Structures are given as structure tokens and as C-alpha cells.
């Protein structure tokens, strides 16, 4: 039995972001991983293939990403925390049943280690071009939760956070990382098992004939019965009523979709997390997420050395979008700069939420991360 290893590898490690993501999942109880190899997310699958049998979980390499997404939905309904990981092309395929996860309200985690697109694009180079797809990629109206880690340590921490949010709000949560963070090797500290905060899904009361699958509590989240527990689970991708029965009418659609959106929007204060550095007196703020937030922090520090009142607002939760925070910042500063590894996606949200209260500058870049000096140059230009 000496080959069986603990799920939580407490201690200091030197590991890449992909491995840290896998370890984070295992540490918070994920015991089912289904994936399809794709650069630059493959290392997560490789790590899981080695580690899952060690902790008594299941690793399965599926035939494609549609199957991967469905397999984790099925596993979650069987009561097991589940995850998949992919990159752009696979993310597109997963969008189909990401929607099913939203509709059936299935807790699970979908990791996207973003690379350059569209299509097969730049498999080995970084991108943040899937940020709007994360928000709107599946058809229909819905709200999502997406987290953006900036370091291997955050890959570990945010994977746990993603699982906790998915279990709490019953939806697939997106971990929108990128190739740089995924492949970067840094110090990762794994805490002791007792220090890891874990949230598990709400369970219903004992089964009675009056049990309703989709009757939500005050927090708008219905308790979740798993398969095999005697609840006679009934669930469908179709619009359904509280019983879980298909309901093909406008009233049911209005009621269900509104609740699915509201369970995120009305709990925004609990979900959204941002991080501020040097913002108290700042006149210029860089809003960044993922790997560019690292360059942005350096740029802000360099600017401060030159006496420019610059600050960093880092988005940890990109979806739901921290609109109130952006407006608060926009009211205080002259300029917001948004560096992104795409043609300018989140900058549109920043513009929308700042209501013209300040100047918003997009700093797009493709296929590579901004250097601190590129961001510093813009900070200097606008500070004149």
C-alpha cells in the first residue's frame, strides 16, 4: 500500500501552473477527471492520470471535449466532484454542454488554459481571447463565474475556490487561465488539509412524495440530490418547472432563466473578488487579469518610482463582472488602462461600467505577454 499517496501534498513545491491546478483539485476532493489532451492544458491531464489512481479517483481520457464535459456532469450527478481541462478549440466544443451544466445546475470545474485563436491558432503561445466566449459561448441567456489566476500558487488556490463556488451556487465554474500561467514554474505552497476551506453542495431533506428537484431556497439555489440516493432525480436540458418536468411555455422560461441568472447576480458581493495595489491616491489605474497582471504590477511599481500616481486593480473574478468596483475606480481616476492578450475584450466591459467618468485605454497584444515597459510607456504618456 506504500504507493498510495495523500490527496493533499502539504509542503512547499516547485511546480508549474497546470500541475498546481491538478493538485488544487485533488486537495479539495475532486475524484473524477475527464479530459482530452490539448496544448497547453495537457499537463493537467498527465498529472491527473498519475495522481487519480493514487487517491482512489477516476481519470479518463475521453474521445473528445464534448464527451469530457458530459462525463464530468454525469460524475457530478453521481455525487463526485469533477473537473475537465482544455484550451481554445476544446473550449469551443465544451460550450455545448457547459450550457447543459448551467441548465441542470451541475457543480463542476472547467479549466481553460488559453492559447491564441481563432481555430487551432497558436497552440504553444499565450492568449486571453476566450474571455468573451467564457461569458457568452453557449447559446441562451445565463450568468457564469470565471476566475483568472496569475501564478501557479493561484492555480492551486483558485481551483479550490472554483470548486467551492460551483458547489455553493450549483453551476460549472470556469477557471480562465492562460498558457503563461499554466506553463510557468514557481513556488507553490500547499497548506495542511485542515486549513483548506471546502464547501460542499446543499443536500435536500429526506425524500418524500412532495420533494421537488428544482425548488430553490432563499439564496435561489435548490438543494441537490445525487443519483442513487433514492430521490428519483429528474433533470433535463429542456426548460423545466420546479418538479424538474419539461415545461414548454413562456412563463416557465421566464421563471427559470431569471432564477438561473439571479442566483449569480444577487450573490455578486459574495462571488466577486478583486485585488488592489497602490490605488488609494492613484490617478491612473491599470485593470488587468491573468498573466498581464504580473507585468502590470511591475509597470505600476516602476511608475511609482518615477513619481507617477499609478495603481493596479486586478480582477480575480472576471465574470460576473465587477461593475460596481469599476465605476468606483472610474469616479476617482483620470485614466484606466486595460492590457489584455487579445484585441480588447474586457476593456469593453470596463468602458461600459465606467459610464464615461474617465478615459479608458485598451492595450491589446497578441501571442505574447506585455512587458512592464510597454505598459509603463502608456502610463507615462497618459500622465503627461
Amino acid at each position, binding site marked *: *500500500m506504500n504507493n*498510495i499517496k495523500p490527496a493533499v501534498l502539504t509542503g512547499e513545491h516547485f511546480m508549474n501552473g497546470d500541475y498546481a491546478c491538478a493538485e488544487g483539485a485533488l486537495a479539495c476532493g475532486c475524484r*473524477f477527471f*475527464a479530459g482530452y489532451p490539448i496544448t497547453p492544458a495537457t499537463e493537467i491531464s498527465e498529472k491527473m492520470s498519475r495522481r487519480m489512481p493514487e487517491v482512489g479517483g477516476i481519470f479518463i481520457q475521453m474521445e473528445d471535449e464534448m464527451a469530457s464535459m458530459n*462525463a464530468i456532469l*454525469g*460524475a457530478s*450527478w453521481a455525487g463526485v466532484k469533477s473537473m475537465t481541462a482544455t484550451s481554445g478549440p476544446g473550449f469551443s466544443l465544451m460550450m455545448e454542454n457547459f450550457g447543459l451544466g448551467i441548465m441542470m445546475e451541475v457543480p463542476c470545474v472547467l479549466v481553460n488554459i488559453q492559447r491564441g485563436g481563432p481555430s487551432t491558432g497558436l497552440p504553444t503561445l499565450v492568449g486571453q481571447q476566450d474571455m468573451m466566449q467564457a461569458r457568452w459561448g453557449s447559446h441562451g441567456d445565463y450568468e457564469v463565474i470565471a476566475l483568472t489566476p496569475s501564478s501557479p500558487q493561484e492555480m492551486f488556490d483558485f481551483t479550490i475556490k472554483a470548486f467551492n463556488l460551483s458547489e455553493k451556487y450549483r453551476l460549472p465554474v470556469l477557471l480562465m487561465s492562460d498558457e503563461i500561467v499554466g506553463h510557468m514554474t514557481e513556488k507553490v505552497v500547499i497548506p495542511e488539509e485542515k486549513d483548506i476551506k471546502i464547501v460542499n453542495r446543499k443536500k435536500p431533506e429526506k425524500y418524500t412524495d412532495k420533494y421537488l428537484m428544482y425548488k430553490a431556497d432563499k439564496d435561489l439555489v435548490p438543494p441537490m440530490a445525487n443519483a*442513487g440516493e433514492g430521490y428519483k432525480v429528474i433533470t*433535463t436540458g429542456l426548460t423545466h418547472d420546479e418538479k424538474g418536468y419539461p415545461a414548454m411555455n413562456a412563463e416557465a422560461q421566464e421563471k427559470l432563466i431569471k432564477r438561473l441568472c439571479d442566483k449569480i447576480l444577487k450573490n455578486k458581493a459574495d462571488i466577486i473578488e478583486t485585488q488592489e495595489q497602490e490605488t488609494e491616491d492613484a490617478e491612473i489605474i491599470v485593470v488587468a487579469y491573468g498573466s498581464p497582471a504580473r507585468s502590470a504590477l511591475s509597470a505600476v511599481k516602476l511608475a511609482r518610482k518615477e513619481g507617477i500616481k499609478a495603481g493596479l486593480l486586478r480582477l480575480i473574478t472576471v465574470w460576473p463582472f465587477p461593475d460596481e468596483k469599476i465605476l468606483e475606480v472610474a469616479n476617482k481616476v483620470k485614466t484606466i488602462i486595460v492590457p489584455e492578450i487579445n484585441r480588447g475584450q474586457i476593456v469593453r466591459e470596463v468602458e461600459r461600467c465606467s459610464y464615461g467618468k474617465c478615459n479608458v485605454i485598451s492595450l491589446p497584444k497578441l501571442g505574447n505577454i506585455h512587458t512592464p515597459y510597454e505598459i509603463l510607456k502608456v502610463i507615462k504618456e497618459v500622465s503627461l
Partner: protein
Amino acid sequence: MSMNEIHPMDKLIRADRMPHIWCSGCGLGTNFICYLTAMEKSGLDLNKCVIVSGIGCTGRIPGYTNIDSFHTTHGRAIPFALGLKLANPELTVTVFSGDGDLFAIGGNHFIHAARRNVDINIICVNNFNYGMTGGQFGPTTPLDAKTTTSPYGNYEHPFNLVDLAAASGAVYVARWTSIHVRRLSKSIEEALLKKGFTFIEIISPCPTNYGRRNKLGDGLDEMKYYREHSIIKHGINPKEADLSFNGEIVVGKFVDIDKPTFLDNQPDMSQMSVNNKK
């Protein structure tokens, strides 16, 4: 007869949803009751029985079944079922879906789940067309058959589903028609109790679309046709299990073998390490 009559199967269906959506003369209700009968006779713990489907007319079956039931998306019932089974091996997982769902949009999932020998049961209702969307041709539509998207006759060769299942690695393969109610029930019962990837094809009437456009009469006429043209050939090579447009329908149990399942083959970590071979 009183107003509160209780059909003996009402405990296994969601009787408050009756009548179901299927047309008069459709074989799905019959196939469904055969499945319920098999499940009851199998002696399995109904709290551990799960039914999963994709979309379409057949896809509506789980919604009427009073056990854990999952109505998923186009073609994805098998990977969903696989997730349920692997995450909780105590469950008996059955996928009940149509030919279009399982073999067109979901074809890839089918062959791979069969190859892996995941312990799930597939029941495929083959009505030779896409019924719910209004009767388009699908991967099982016979050559020359007319559908709304093959108005001049279908010019694509159809799959032989039992041959495909056997070639992909299924450990149990059978084909029946909706008229073979007793044999079908028995076969489903065997499949539910069988370890590994099982496949049962049910040839079933679609009077509203396929039957009407091909002048096959109503559901009753199609059922009579099955009675007159079915021929049981147990154990034959599924390649030779004919299913032609106007000819005989070969039915029977073609494959019943044993081999280790996906879970049987999981590494035994007390014996093994990636770095040091046992």
C-alpha cells in the same frame, strides 16, 4: 371501472405526466413498458437504477421513468452515463435513446464507450429516421427510403447497428422489434444484469413520419410487418443480420461474451507504481 384505476406500472412511471407525447401507433410506449418490466423482474435495487437519454422522441423516455432520470443533449447521453457509472459503480446505468441521437451526432461516443467496455447498457430505438424534428433521414435510413430530406429516396448507405456494436467491442448485442415484447423484455433483463457494455437495438414503428412517407401504413401495419418478416437467428455473425427496406428483419441475440470492464482494468495501486514496475 372506476376513475382512479392504477396500472401496475404506474409505480415505475411518472403517472402524473401521462398521456405521454408519443403518437398513436408509435412503438416507443411498448418498448418503454418492456424496459420497465425487465427492470422490475431483474430484482435490481430501483434506487440504484439510472436512465439517461439524449434528445428526440426516444429521449423523452427518462422523463417518464420514476427512477433517477437524465435527459441530456444531442448525442451526449453515453458520456454522461459513463460519468455516472464510473463515479458511482453501484449504479446500474442504462442509456435509452434513438438511432439518430446515438449513431449520428453521438456515434463517436458510442464506439469509444464500447471499446472501453464501460459497464453501461444501451437500448437504441431504431425507427429509421429523425422523428421529432419531422422525419429527416438519418444514419439508419434504408437506401431509397423517402424522408423530408431525401425526397427522391435516400442515397446514403445505412449502418448495421448490431454489426457496429459488435465490432466496437460490445459484450452483449441483440436486436428485436417492438412486437417481440416478451423476448425484448427478457433480453433487456439479461443486459441489465450483464457486466460490461451491452447493446440492444429495437426496430420500432414511426407511423407519423417514416411510415407515412414510405407508404408503410399506420403503426399497426408496421407491427404486423415485423410479425410477418422477422426471423430469429441467435448467434449469427452480426454482419449477416440483415435489415433491408422491404425484406426480412433478422433478430436475435448475436453476441454474449465476457471481458474485463474499464473499472476491472483500473490500476491496483497497492501493486503498482508508475516508476517501478511491479
